[in-house]
């Protein structure tokens, strides 16, 4: 379980390269055989829009063992509706997030 709350997954504006590196970390974890959930929250959901210049996120949605979720509340706050999401991104509520967090063996990393 990795969280991204940073708008930097989108290519512009991009204050740092950290989010892209964080996506690479998630991809590496999945590549090593782990089940990974990449949970976008707060400004992190901006990258989930169709047409967003977010190559790092696009690479995640096609990765085996990777689930990309966007927080419904954060989407609503920013006026992003479900039909505007990029392929491969699913929406999730806070209850679903807690269910994932409380799963035995889950390790969570916040960015």
């Amino acid at each position: 379980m990795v969280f991204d709350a940073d708008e930097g997954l989108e290519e512009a504006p991009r204050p740092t390269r950290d989010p892209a590196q964080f996506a690479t970390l998630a991809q590496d974890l999945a590549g090593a055989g782990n089940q990974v959930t990449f949970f976008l929250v707060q400004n992190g959901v901006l990258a989930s829009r169709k047409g967003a210049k977010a190559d790092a996120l696009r690479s995640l949605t096609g990765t085996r063992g990777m689930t990309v979720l966007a927080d419904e509340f954060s989407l609503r706050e920013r006026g992003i509706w479900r039909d505007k999401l990029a392929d491969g991104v699913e929406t999730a509520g806070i209850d679903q997030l807690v269910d994932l967090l409380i799963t035995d063996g889950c390790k969570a990393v916040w960015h």
Partner: protein
Amino acid sequence: MASGKTLTISVMDPPYESATTTTVLRVMDAALRKGHNVNVFAYEGAVALPLRTQVPHPNPIKGTTAEEQHHPITSAFISALFEAAAASGAKLDWVNCGMCVDERGATEWVDGVRRGGPGDFAKFAQESTNTVVIGTR
């Protein structure tokens, strides 16, 4: 119904400065309502989240009263978390970092919050189903 599982969260964001505060409080609330125990280690600015001296304010520019503004107060949210825990049979253990508290003079908290230190966080992490560390920027 208590689940017997425990989620530990460390947070350092102060009130009213980051969307992270909202996210963290949402996660805590959902976990408690599901019957999971929640441990919180608040350090740096986050020790101000449960300050009982917070008060809602009016908006003199708009001419609205404090009641009309209905301004959110994080300490009220935290009191509500303790109520949610009591209702579900779960436990909320909120520890405010003592050194962070002393630095800020942030000593008056809503009921349920206690003073502690990094040792509490280490113990929390050892005893929890999962631990989430939320840094600030």
